[in-house]
């Protein structure tokens, strides 16, 4: 069973989560449901600082033993930080997808885009249908 989806953040249809801060930056990761689907994560390809992304653009790549999965940016922005701990311990995403397993930090170009994202309740509804 996946862990409950925290209500302090936004969700995308591609199984990312996003926490928005008042300074205009956001932390992004994948949901616990997503890490369960991917299973044993063995490699994370992180972007360079300064990379510009738009919604649905690949911002990172997560690999399990068998699969290669793109992680899409839910919003428009610029990468300001990456979770370097994932270089040596990619399994942090499996262990704590909503916390220590965060992937990138972005500076948002347009916080209005957040309105397009899902709430925790919406997201739960969506994965129920997927199952």
């Amino acid at each position: 069973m996946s862990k409950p989806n925290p209500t302090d953040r936004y969700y995308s249809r591609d199984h990312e989560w996003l926490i928005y801060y008042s300074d205009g930056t956001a932390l992004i990761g994948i949901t616990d449901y997503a890490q369960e689907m991917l299973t044993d994560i063995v490699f994370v390809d992180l972007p360079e600082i300064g990379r510009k992304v738009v919604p649905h653009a690949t911002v990172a790549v997560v690999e399990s033993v068998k699969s290669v999965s793109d992680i899409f940016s839910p919003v428009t922005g610029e990468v300001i930080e990456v979770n370097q701990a994932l270089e040596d311990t990619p399994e942090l995403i499996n262990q704590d997808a909503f916390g220590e397993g965060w992937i990138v930090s972005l500076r948002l170009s347009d916080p209005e885009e957040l309105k397009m994202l899902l709430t925790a309740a919406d997201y739960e509804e969506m994965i129920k249908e997927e199952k």
Partner: protein
Amino acid sequence: MKKTPLYEKHVALKAKIIDFGGWAMPVQYTNVIDEHRTTRSAAGLFDICHMGEIEVKGSQALDLLQLVLTRNLADQTVGQVKLSALLNEDGGVIDDLTVYKMDEYSFMLVTNATPKDRDWEWINKIQAEKKFDCELKDVSDPTGKLDLQGPRSEEILQKLTDADLKNLRFYHFCKAKVAGLETIVSRSGYTGEDGFEIYAPENVIGQIWDRLMTAGAELGIKPCGLGARDTLRLESGMMLNGQDMDESVSPLEVPYSWIVDKSKEFVGAAALRAKQSTGIRKKLVGLEMTGRGIARHGYKVFHGEKEIGVVTSGTFSPTLNKAIGLAFMDVDYSAPETAIEVLIRDTMTAAKIVKLPFYKRIK
């Protein structure tokens, strides 16, 4: 999709099911790394019912097999298993399969799942021309197959059979009663570990599965999927038909020269001789990533600006904790320790050629 007799068990175990060559097969029950390590340290049980079995019986069964297979089977003893290749007229690999000598005039071929129908048609086509005194029978559907692999396999299986497993040598088999049921037990496999391939009628294979799971519980047995099967075979330097080779590939270009007997005549032999005289230009070899990243099937290999190869298999090795793979390389860049680069997405990533296998068990 076709289902094996064990399909319902996989679903009950909440396995992730994938389409493997038209078969609904479990790719993993828990996760690949756990299943992989369980097989290396204890025992893994694999549903291999999708593979094909073809019987060849008759006074000239051996003559037909000597003609269609690359390996010399003249010295094969009853109870011995031999790996061989089935080639087309151009010397390309249709399948790599194992030959079981049941008695002087009776053989069983164990084929890969995907090329099985192609094997069947090809061997029958040759038999129709040559008319050897023998009969072919596709017994894939009535035959079930389980692979029990890992260092505790013998201990687990011995609980269920009177057969003397200790004295059953590698790549040999015997007829044995397992859990009171008639089976063929072969000491062989596709993981690089000690272990057994067990054949029984499809209607009782589920009973054997259950009895092995129970007998192995205290020794740490777990069901394992095709995901772990793939990483286990790759660490052991074994190829996967359809992924590392196909009918465009010669056995001389992959680590299969040892199963080609150049002193006998077989279908494809002339093409191999021609190939040898013009020179082998590419070779399947092992690679290890030295930079950050995992090489995957289809990724291109470079030396500077020059494209020199392509990755055929690649994964993260759970035993070695590094990224490994197989690649078809220009022969000039195929020697161990050659520095190469793999194009991973848009980044050239450092790698080197290494000797196979990546992993060898300590006996």
